[in-house]
């Protein structure tokens, strides 16, 4: 990947001679805005009652002990559902509109310059990353952590594996993973409405397992989504059988 960056250095994006007056005007406007915001922040009093007390009072009803997770996945779970649905629509757009690299050009590459250092380090690092992300997912109920952080870690591990030559993930195997997060969240939202009368209103005794189940599926789904963003840009097209690329050593 980094080999291509040197060849693109000739295609620099140059600023075409911006005038100094424009720079000064825009710079002074930006500085004035920034100073106004800072002055407003310093001089403002917290007039409204802070929501922190409300959250801490209802924390026992939410099923988790971390107030951030309680707000994200119980009190304002509708926002999180819409967020995951927005990620899902973006991944649909990415898969539809970003073509993968030309298959012929990809097959002519004899192989990514896999440095043995990277491969060796990843043999130890990727299992550790999986364990740490599982820990972050589990501890999101008690400490800072949660589904998004765990998903970002797994996506980082998948990108590292892809950079070291392990093109192990086929496009078609990804589709159920991408859909699962949104689907399970929606299903949970609708199913609890049969028991409590409102969608996304978890019954208090079952709130913790429901939140954990949603978080597990959301982690896998978001990790797959973030990896698809990367692989649409960098990996050659695997769905065609014209060139055979097998997993590295």
């Amino acid at each position, binding site marked *: 990947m980094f080999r291509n960056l040197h060849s693109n250095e000739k295609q620099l994006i140059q*600023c075409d001679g911006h005038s100094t007056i424009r720079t000064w005007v825009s710079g002074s406007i930006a500085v004035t805005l920034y100073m106004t915001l800072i002055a407003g922040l310093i001089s403002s009093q917290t007039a409204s009652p802070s929501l922190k007390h409300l959250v801490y009072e209802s924390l026992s009803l939410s099923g988790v002990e971390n107030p951030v997770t309680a707000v994200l996945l119980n009190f304002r779970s509708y926002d999180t559902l819409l967020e995951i649905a927005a990620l899902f629509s973006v991944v649909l757009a990415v898969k539809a509109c970003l073509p993968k690299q030309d298959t012929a050009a990809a097959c002519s590459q004899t192989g990514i310059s896999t440095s043995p250092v990277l491969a060796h380090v990843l043999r130890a690092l990727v299992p550790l990353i999986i364990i740490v992300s599982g820990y972050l997912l589990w501890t999101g109920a008690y400490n*800072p952590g949660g589904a998004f952080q765990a998903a970002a870690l797994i996506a980082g591990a998948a990108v590292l594996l892809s950079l070291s030559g392990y093109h192990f993930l086929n496009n078609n195997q990804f589709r159920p993973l991408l859909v699962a997060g949104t689907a399970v969240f929606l299903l949970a939202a609708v199913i609890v409405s049969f028991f409590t009368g409102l969608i996304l209103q978890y019954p208090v005794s079952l709130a913790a397992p429901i939140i954990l189940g949603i978080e597990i599926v959301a982690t896998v789904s978001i990790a797959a989504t973030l990896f698809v963003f990367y692989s649409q840009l960098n990996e050659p097209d695997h769905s065609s059988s014209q060139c055979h690329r097998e997993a590295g050593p």
Partner: protein
Amino acid sequence: MTFTIEVELLLDIVLCIGIFSLAFLSLSTSNIFKAVLFFICMGLLVTIAWARLKAWDVAIAEAAIGAGITGVLLLVTIARPRIKTLSEEASNHVS
């Protein structure tokens, strides 16, 4: 008069100056590769800023996503072959 400077205030001032200067440098360099690298460094400083604001979840997410995912996506994007504009394609056909 003697001023006692707290270490935390010094750290906050350094973070502010660092974030703003990295953002300005990222937008003003002419080399796109340097701009992406400045953006990744700014992401690291923003992670520390989130930690200073005691928003631990956001700090973890910013560290993983801001530097890890967004940085890699930007690097991969600028490494792709450049899309030709219409005028360049026309000039290629003519010449």
